[in-house]
């Protein structure tokens, strides 16, 4: 066959046309793009300098110190502040993704009324009308802030009341309130001076308290030591992360914490390991053994182990009077290394009711966990930065997100160190958001703003001349030259700590051994994370690694 020039041209044209319907050109294009990284839809961060600013995490009441890396006005990463006297540079895992939360798909950007969009004016009008017609109940999650003061003043002026949803650490201190007459929010656990800590399922190594406070202490005094300076005994039904790392794990049946506490008390008294004073639990060791799944001898042995190294501190996971009574028996209430009074003049807080019947309006602050949904016929105004889904509230109001508002950070729950700090607004909100305190301030112009209250608190600290300011270096407040300087330091990320004082005996009266407390469901996400969503990267914790169970109630 003779091949002509025409044939060559036809074949060439055919091959070229045919090639276009094969994957080859597209693969070449794809590879070229891959090598050059030039697909327009792949985001590439702008090459801008990174600046580091000090702040505090306000996503839960623990207020850990943060170093926020900022680029072009946006936070691009967070790390812990090593000089923070309580959190000591540690953060919970969720905090490392907190800077992405403001862009979460479930971020609330508009006022919602029922199922439809509304406006701030309409919400304010509705709230003002409700406040005129009846009582207002304000519910919040982090007491002691400047915003808390705004809520209290508003409630007092309008014949309402302020309630607080306490975290599990604060709730575990509630029984002492009744026995000592001191508010639970004024009490703390002196972890620093304890030699043995008996934890009844409290996740001490898993986000309990200020995450850095106990984990750093444990790492220094206990981790990997056969005879540690600090003995952590975990009484828990399952081998949790804390139990796995504890010096001793005492496995008991689920829900038998109260019985175990009574059994230990009985064994302590029976073996004369503690002075016999106060009430005696009625339960016998054999009954406790049957309930907990341990033998009577194992309970006796545990009792001996507990008192082998003192001071001993017992911590419950939640409000459990039987477990708290063990501290009374061991003489750990008001003693060094025990339950101590931290704040002198803290006002009592009213725990939030699950059912609110006597109110015309309920205002829920953004600091309240999303799971708190009171049963009420009142009109509910809920502030939240993110929509957790399944909302039953009448009004859903967009609150400032991560670092979008000036917030002061008072003493963390259950901490034995009195602290005060200010988290400045480092990020501009991209939509119109208001905090609950600003919302109330718009309705009642006589209310002081949070900024003004923070300023007053700075002045009070300066005038009192006590405590230390932990900034780049620690300085005594008495050496700070002016209130402006103190304010400036606090705004730059310094932390004020009160002077440690001897615990002083707390008068503690326990008339009878408390009845068993109902066991609560254990949540694998122990951190008191108030935001209704998790950072998108949190899937690393429950999908990629399977370290935790998938969160049922939170949206990643």
């Amino acid at each position, binding site marked *: 066959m003779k091949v002509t020039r025409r044939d060559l041209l036809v074949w060439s044209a055919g091959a070229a046309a045919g090639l276009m319907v094969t994957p080859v050109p597209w693969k070449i294009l794809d590879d070229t793009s*891959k090598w050059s990284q030039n697909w327009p839809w792949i985001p590439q961060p702008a090459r801008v300098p990174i600046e580091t600013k000090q702040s505090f995490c306000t996503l839960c009441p623990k207020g850990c110190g943060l170093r926020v890396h900022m680029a072009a006005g946006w936070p691009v990463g*967070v790390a812990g502040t090593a000089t923070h006297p309580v959190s000591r540079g540690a953060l919970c895992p969720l905090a490392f993704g907190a800077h992405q939360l403001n862009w979460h798909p479930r971020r609330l950007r508009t006022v919602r009324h029922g199922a439809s969009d509304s406006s701030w004016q309409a919400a304010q009008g509705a709230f003002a009308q409700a406040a005129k017609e009846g009582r207002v109940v304000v519910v919040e999650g982090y007491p002691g802030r400047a915003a808390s003061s705004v809520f209290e003043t508003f409630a007092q002026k309008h014949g309402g009341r302020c309630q607080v949803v306490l975290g599990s650490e604060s709730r575990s201190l509630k029984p002492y309130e009744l026995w000592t007459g001191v508010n639970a929010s004024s009490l703390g656990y002196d972890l620093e001076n304890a030699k043995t800590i008996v934890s009844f399922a409290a996740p001490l190594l898993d986000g309990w308290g200020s995450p850095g406070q106990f984990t750093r202490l444990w790492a220094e005094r206990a981790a990997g030591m*056969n005879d540690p300076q600090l003995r952590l005994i975990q009484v828990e039904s399952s081998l949790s992360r804390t139990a796995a790392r504890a010096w001793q794990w005492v496995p008991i049946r689920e829900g038998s914490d109260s019985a175990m506490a009574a059994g230990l008390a009985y064994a302590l008294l029976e073996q004369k390991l503690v002075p016999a004073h106060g009430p005696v639990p009625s339960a016998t060791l054999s009954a406790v053994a049957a309930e907990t799944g341990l033998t009577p001898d194992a309970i006796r042995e545990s009792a001996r182990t507990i008192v082998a190294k003192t001071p001993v501190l017992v911590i419950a996971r939640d409000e459990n009077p039987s477990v708290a009574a063990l501290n009374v028996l061991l003489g750990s209430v008001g003693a060094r290394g025990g339950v101590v009074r931290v704040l002198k003049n803290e006002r009592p807080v009213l725990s939030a009711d699950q059912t609110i019947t006597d109110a015309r309006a309920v205002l829920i602050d953004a600091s309240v966990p999303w799971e708190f949904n009171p049963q009420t016929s009142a009109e509910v105004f809920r502030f939240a930065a993110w929509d957790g889904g399944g909302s039953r509230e009448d009004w859903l109001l967009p609150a400032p997100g991560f670092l979008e508002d000036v917030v002061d950070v008072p003493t963390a729950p259950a901490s034995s160190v009195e602290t005060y700090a200010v988290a400045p607004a480092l990020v501009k909100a991209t939509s119109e958001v208001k905090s609950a305190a600003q919302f109330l301030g718009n309705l009642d112009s006589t209310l002081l703003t949070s900024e003004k209250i923070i300023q007053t608190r700075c002045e009070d600290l300066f005038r009192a001349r006590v405590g230390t300011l932990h900034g780049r270096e620690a300085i005594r407040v008495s050496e700070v030259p002016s209130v402006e300087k103190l304010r400036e330091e606090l705004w730059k990320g310094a932390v004020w700590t009160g002077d440690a004082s001897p615990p002083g005996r707390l008068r503690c009266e326990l008339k009878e051994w408390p009845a068993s407390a109902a066991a609560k469901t254990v949540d694998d996400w122990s951190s008191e994370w108030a935001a209704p969503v998790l950072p998108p990267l949190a899937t690393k914790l429950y999908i990629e690694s399977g370290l935790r169970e998938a969160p049922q109630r939170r949206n990643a």
Partner: protein
Amino acid sequence: MSARYGMVIDLDRCTGCGSCMMACAAENNVPPLPQSSERTGLTPVLVRKVSNGKDGTSRREAFIPILCMHCEHDTPCVKVCPQQAVEVDKATGIVMQMPQRCLGCRYCMTACPYHARYFNWRDPAWPPGMEKSLNPGVAVRMRGVVEKCNLCHARFHAAKEKAAAAGKREINPPDYVPACVEACPTGAIHFGNLADANDPVSKEARSPEAFRLLARIGTEPKVYYKSKEAWVRALAEPNSARASEVQHG
């Protein structure tokens, strides 16, 4: 003088909190997992839970963060890469992955004895606006390439730039700390220069409690682990008679 950066991870201090995984992902602009995915996310550090294989009160558990071991000898991923997209940096000892050269054949993933390499199955994507939260120091990797831990090499560059600005050739060691080391709340991850006999990490790596995963295959990993627990140390050689005894005994 060239360095040999490495780690010693004290497993007796690891509580399995996952802070290292979160901090690493945020630092290195790892995209969030698409909702439809199951365990296909990128985890340059992956914390695994291990146990002594027993039940009841005898059960013991520990957590092992697994990352690129930065093998020094006969580095398996380097040997199999047809594109020269993986190399051991002579100045730092870090096993570097260059996404621009990677053609996505995944030979390196097959060769890696530690399963510490991950394939980018999708275009990296973030919810609208979230790209503003990306770390400007780290480039986003494209679909179709393999990636892994590079000991936060961007932080090494930043430390080099800082040293250069101060007129120095060598970096100041505290200026170069990988994100996982910085994030660990118990201080379980120690990082340093193994080539410096006086470096605390170098000393720790020589302690009797230190061990390396699959040391018998001779790849000389620069990530060491440490534990006082014999059953944990035995897990380093999963096929050995000793480990088998611990796991099933």
